């Protein structure tokens, strides 16, 4: 399996053809890093549409039910979010997965915005996981972003300012819609690209998204 890593780095996400099983998805994950299990131990998690009542506490479904999800960084509840998120969709695939490249989403903002981003302090508060974090972090030579409007609360005045703006962005803007077709998977650079779930189509059938986290 050959992955165009340069394109992934430049664009922030790429679609890969020929991924038709969980095994394929896992092998694809290994080409970009080390797959890591979700907090409940599963390596590949099947995500299905759930009502608010049936969804696990703290999940996007528990907040938005069957509706659309705002753009967000995955695994903000880990001190260092996973570097890549791999998704494969099948079933009723009319509903797209949305992606937002952070540098594109915030490119029109002024110097104050960027200055405040550096100064902003946030609290991640998910179940028994509570820790402070930045929304723009450096790890080695890489810079990464972390934002989830529902799981991160602003702590200082700079974060309150940034939160007002980002909260609007993640609910109203997207860079692209990934329309699932056939045996495809998407690799999302989770430190630079947010993702979400599009609007629910009428009479939606069973839509399954397989998800793999990769460090």
């Amino acid at each position, binding site marked *: 399996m050959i992955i165009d890593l340069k394109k992934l780095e430049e664009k922030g996400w790429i679609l890969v053809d020929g991924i038709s099983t969980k095994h394929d998805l896992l092998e694809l994950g290994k080409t970009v890093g080390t797959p*890591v299990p979700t*907090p409940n131990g599963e390596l590949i998690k099947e995500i299905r549409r759930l009502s608010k009542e049936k969804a696990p506490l703290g999940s996007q479904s528990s907040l938005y039910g069957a509706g659309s999800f705002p753009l967000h960084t995955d695994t903000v509840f880990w*001190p*260092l979010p996973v570097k890549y998120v791999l998704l494969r969709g099948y079933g009723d695939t009319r509903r797209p997965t949305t992606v937002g490249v952070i540098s594109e989403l915030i490119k029109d903002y002024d110097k104050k915005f960027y200055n405040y981003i550096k100064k902003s*302090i946030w609290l991640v508060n998910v179940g028994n996981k509570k820790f402070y974090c*930045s929304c723009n*972090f*450096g*790890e080695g030579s890489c810079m990464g972003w972390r934002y989830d409007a529902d799981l991160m609360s602003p702590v*200082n005045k700079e974060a309150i300012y940034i939160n007002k703006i980002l909260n609007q962005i993640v609910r109203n803007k997207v860079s692209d819609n990934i329309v699932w077709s056939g045996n495809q998977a998407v690799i999302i650079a989770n430190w630079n690209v947010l993702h979400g779930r599009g609007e629910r189509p009428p009479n939606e059938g069973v839509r399954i998204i397989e998800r793999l986290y990769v460090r």
Partner: protein
Amino acid sequence: MSWEKDPLWTKARLFLKYAFEDTERDDPKFGLWCSMGLELLARASLSSISPTLLALPDRNHIYLLHALRKESEVPFPQSIPAAVVFDLCKKIYPGFSEEDHNIAKALLSRRNAELHSGTAAFIEYKSSQWLTGFYHACKSLVTTLEKTLVDLFGEEEARLAEEILSGNREIIKTNVLAGIAAHKKVFESKKRENKEKAKIDSEKLGLELSTQRHHRVTCPACQCVATVQGREFGKEHVVSEAGGNITIKQAVLPTSFSCSACGLNFTTFTELEIAGIGNSYTRRKTCSAAEYYGLIDPENIDEYLASEHGDFLEYDNE
């Protein structure tokens, strides 16, 4: 438990915000927040090499595995004590000097005394005794994280810290101590009545100057009343609002010293700090609510508009 660099770095910034923005400099909590912020900064610095450095060694490597994310079920993972954190920083980072290590350990001792005993540890450990060293230790540690003091403190505090750190301390120290010794010798050689007169005059002058933005201190050479002047810094704290007036407390960093009795003078904070008269002090001022909030008297709106915008006829344009 998070031993990753980013949460530790962010929490260090938060604690230093509590110190520098939310606490008055003469409040004992200022030292406490600074000491805790410094420890978190040092932990972030070690974590930037590997979070495993923070794991408390144990026979079964439980905490090490936790740091490696191989054992997530440890309810309260234990990390190495702060003293070991600073020892490791000294071993690993050449830039974290013996002096940085000493001031970090001194603040740590005070913090422990503050948290684990009934001692009011930071009341007697004035910021003038440790602030310069603290800034230096912070600078050494932020460098290891490829950050700057601006990233840690914000622009204003970082500018002040850099200014304080910019002098060559050893040379300044020699000059300051020599200056004090020389003035002391000259003053002591004066006749007794002249010394008495100089003392009385200095008290009078000190009292007079204290109403003119000077702050009275004891001269380190002749022990007479002398004064310092300085620069306001940090956040203003409103202490009372009554009868339309607002009283504000503002921290002042002393930057010049003058003694009328023996003639000793200093002109920088570093000199004052070495001479033992570098404590920041607070200045109270009272102003009207209108002044404080920049309110405009509606009676004088035309005057205000003219002063702000000159010819205001343009305002009539749609």
